[in-house]
Each structure stands twice: as structure tokens, then as C-alpha cells.
């Protein structure tokens, strides 16, 4: 049970002057319970890739996009099954809020499930509590009048309410203040741990990705160019730099030091572990008195 993408290619506006190759032979796997990070510059094909995962863009050949062994090529008519399994939260999802009250907006995704009012209320309550909002104090508020961070949570709850097994987030923390960012990331972790939801996250914040992800895919010009654990990926300093990507702060520091401090371990991403390595290296080299 996983999302499997095999050798997928995709071209926008095929045959027109505006033709643009968005994906080139991309293979990608997301296993249950994992947190996957996708990084890459703007226009590297990240959005096109994630839109394939819930059938917003259809594959052009069979066996290219599989969700829980269901081939999306054969599911054009029954795509709503996939949409329920794979929740996709777009960039700046607060732009999609439209109902008069928070409760109605979050419940929008439940419309086709034919739930009783009590069940529906329960689902909304759970979804709101997962994103850290109290149901009673928010249910009757207008979603359009809330703060940016609250709006983002409501939009996220609008997807979580459908109980997806996979949750795809396109730059979930873009434009949020540091505090809202941190607590949103905590919630994403919690959703992953408590509900065992597979998370696929696109981000430009390397520290965020390094902290959360189990595995990372690096994309460039529509192709996957690097893939592995955060430690593996972020030790490829030169390649990442050539792709115009930055490193997590700790990796950057260690790479800078490694230019003169030969033999220092650069595979660490966590700031505290990094401090430890620097301390030990200095002790070994007799630089610490």
C-alpha cells in the first residue's frame, strides 16, 4: 500500500509554441507512515508531480501512477476514490475558503459522503482539533475574517476531515510567521504519528525538510536528480549548490568548516549534534583549551 510513480513524463501544451516538458522519467515512492520531502527550484516540476498523485493531472500511459495498487490511468471516472485517499493541500490554501462559517467550510469535503449531521459534526470537530483549533470557539466564525495562520489551519482541516491516508502539502508554511510555522510543522508531525498518515511535503525551507523528512527527492528541470535520506542528500553540497538550492544551516556551517578542518563529519543536520561534532573535533585537534 503506497504511492508509486514509475518513469513518468509529462508535457504541458503538447504541440503548441508554449509546450513545456514538466516531468522527465520521474520515479517516486511514498510508503505508509513516511514523511517525504520534495525540494527543487521554482519550475522544476514539483507541483506537476504532486498533482499526478491525486489525479488532478492524468497519466498518459497505464502503470505510471499507482495509488494503493490502483492505476490512475484507469480511474478517470472514479477519481473521487483517489481524491479521498490522497488529500492535496495547495500553496496558500486559505485562498480556497468560501463558506460563511468555519464549520460549513471544513465540512465541504464531506458533502458527498452522506453523513448524518452528528457524524459530520464529529468529523469537523476532530479535524479542527488535529490542526489545533477549538471547535466551539471557531465553528460559527467567518473563515474570511481570521488571521493568516488560522485560515491556513482551517484550509488544512478541510482536507484532513476527509480522513486521507496520504497528505500532500505544497509549501505549507510559506508566508507564515515563525511561531505559526513552528506549530504548523508540529501538527504535521502529529498527523503523521497519530493517524499514521503518509506525508509528502514540498518546501523551500531546507531546515524544515531536514527536520521532518525521512526521505528527500531533489528535482531539477523535471527530473529527480538526487534521492535519499536527509543526511545523504545534504552531504552533496556541490551538486545542491549547482542546482541553486541552499543547505540546512548546520550542514552549511559544517561544510564551511570542512574546507580547513579536514576530516570533520559533515553528514549531521541537527544543530545540537552539529555543535557536538564541532566540539569533539576541536578537542581532538587540540584547538579547545
Amino acid at each position, binding site marked *: 500500500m503506497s504511492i508509486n510513480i514509475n518513469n513518468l513524463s509529462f508535457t504541458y501544451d503538447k504541440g503548441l*509554441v508554449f509546450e513545456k516538458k514538466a516531468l522527465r522519467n520521474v520515479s517516486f515512492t511514498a510508503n505508509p507512515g513516511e514523511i517525504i520531502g520534495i525540494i527543487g527550484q521554482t519550475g522544476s516540476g514539483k507541483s506537476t508531480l504532486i498533482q499526478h498523485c491525486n489525479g488532478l493531472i492524468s497519466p498518459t500511459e497505464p502503470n505510471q501512477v499507482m495509488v494503493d495498487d490502483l492505476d490512475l490511468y484507469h480511474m478517470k471516472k472514479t477519481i473521487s476514490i483517489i*481524491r479521498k485517499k490522497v488529500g492535496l493541500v495547495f500553496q496558500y490554501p486559505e485562498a480556497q475558503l*468560501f463558506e460563511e462559517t468555519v464549520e460549513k467550510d471544513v465540512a*465541504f469535503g464531506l458533502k458527498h459522503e452522506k453523513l448524518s449531521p452528528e457524524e459530520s459534526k464529529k468529523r469537523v470537530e476532530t479535524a479542527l482539533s488535529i490542526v489545533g483549533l477549538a471547535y466551539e470557539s471557531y465553528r460559527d466564525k467567518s473563515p474570511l475574517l481570521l488571521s493568516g495562520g488560522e485560515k491556513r489551519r482551517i484550509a488544512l482541516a478541510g482536507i484532513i476531515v476527509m480522513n486521507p491516508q496520504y497528505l500532500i502539502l505544497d509549501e505549507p508554511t510559506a508566508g507564515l510567521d515563525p511561531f505559526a510555522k513552528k506549530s504548523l510543522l508540529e501538527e504535521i508531525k502529529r498527523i503523521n504519528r497519530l493517524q499514521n498518515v503518509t506525508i509528502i511535503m514540498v518546501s523551500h525551507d531546507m531546515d524544515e525538510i531536514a527536520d521532518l523528512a525521512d526521505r528527500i527527492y531533489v528535482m531539477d528541470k523535471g527530473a529527480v536528480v538526487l534521492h535519499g535520506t536527509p543526511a545523504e542528500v545534504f552531504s552533496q553540497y556541490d551538486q545542491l549548490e549547482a542546482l541553486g538550492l541552499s543547505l540546512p544551516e548546520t550542514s552549511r556551517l559544517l561544510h564551511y568548516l570542512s574546507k580547513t578542518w579536514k576530516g570533520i563529519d559533515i553528514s549531521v543536520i541537527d544543530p545540537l549534534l552539529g555543535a557536538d561534532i564541532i566540539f569533539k573535533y576541536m578537542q581532538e585537534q587540540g584547538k579547545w583549551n
Partner: protein
Amino acid sequence: MELKRQITLGQYVPGKSILHTLDPRIKLLSSLILMVVVFLIHSVTGYLVMLGVLMILVFLSRIPVRYFINGLKPILMLLVLTVSLQVFFTKGTSEPLFQWWIVKVYQEGLVAAVFILLRLVLLVFSSSLLTLTTSPMRLTSAIEFILKPFSYLGLPTSEISMMMTIALRFIPTILEETDRLIKAQSSRGAEFETGNLFKRLQGLIPILVPLFISSFRRADDLAIAMESRCFQVGIKRTQMHPLVFRSVDFLSFGLFLTILLLIVLFF
């Protein structure tokens, strides 16, 4: 992305052909004259010659013919309707060519149908030729130039052209936004292609409400941005790239007019 492909209204295909570099005022005037001429011609050969002239222009523009054919798609229903009306409801003097029940097809009807078909196709082709080879910005400055005489009658021409520029500028932005919203709401289980008319209209609410909200916000932002750059209504403005006639513009305009005149005179 899907929407953008379907709506080709005012679509511009960048290029470096002679038609792209011609002065937009010349192009605008020429296509207006062309549209008048289309109604002055009264023989099928005349139309075929016109079609030939347009085909040469299409070739010169270096834009694939596919784009021009695409321009016909939105008016396909209109074409079918008018052509069949002409065929079935024109009464001729001679014997009907074809008769079935109360349907009678006369030769005059067929001729009229071919006429109207060629006219509409020529109109669409010539206006496509203008919009496909002229960027929206250059087109609006051309319109501003042509509207200029009316400013003496109190018409706020520069404001009109500013409004047109803004509207044209935001068509792709809003299409993109709509596309994004459709995708975002479908991810939440919204369905737009099922149910009766009422259900489908209801399905538009999750798209239209956010679209209006963001459009108003965008208008607000734009107003502030324009005012902070000292934009004021009713003040004389200069252009960064003022339109300048070159000799090649006059030459091609003269050549074009001569060809049209000859066609009108001989056909």
C-alpha cells in the same frame, strides 16, 4: 493550464515575423478595412482570392495554421446554425435541387450558405491575424491612438486604454487562479461536471466566491501600487516605447490597400 488552452481570446503568439514587427496601428486599421471589404465582395471567386491573400499573410506571420483553425471553434455552433438556416430557408425561383417532406433546398440557398460561411471564416481569420501577431500592450496603444480624436469630444481615452490594458493584463492571471481554485476544490471532493443545471451552477460557488475575494484584493493592491507611483486620472502621460511609423509600415499599408482595392474592383 486547461482553461488557458481552451480560451484563446486575444491570445498572442510571440514571434519576429514581418507581421509581428509592423506598427500595430497599421495592423488595426488594415484589419478594420479588411472586415469592411469582406462585406463589399459579391462573388465566390472574390472570396477565394481574399482567402488566398489571407493565407499568404498567415504564412508570413509564421504562426501555425492550427491556431487560426482553433479560433473558429468557439463560433462553430454559430457557423452550423447560420449555414443551415441559409440552406433550408432561402427560397429560390428555379426548381429545388433537393426535396424531402417540407424541406426544400434551392441553388440560391446553397450559394448564400457558402457566402456566409466564407464571410465568417474570413472575419475570424483576419481578427485572429491581428491578435495573434500583436501583443496586448501594443494593441491597446494602437486603440488609444485611434480613439484620440474622440478625446476632444470629452471621451477619457487614456483612461479607457488604461482600463483595457489592465483587463488584458489580468485575463491570464485570473484564468490561472480559476484553474488553481478548480483543482483545490476538486481535491476537497467538489464536482463540476455532474448533476443537473442547478447543481452545476451551485458547484460554481466554491470557485466564484474566492475568485471575487482575490480579485478585489488584487484591485486594491494594484490601486495602491499605481498611486504610490503617482498615477493620477486625467493627466497627460508619455509612453516608454512610443509607437513610431517606419517607411516599411506605410509601404505595406499601401500595398495592402492596393490589393484590397483591386479585389473590390475586379470581383
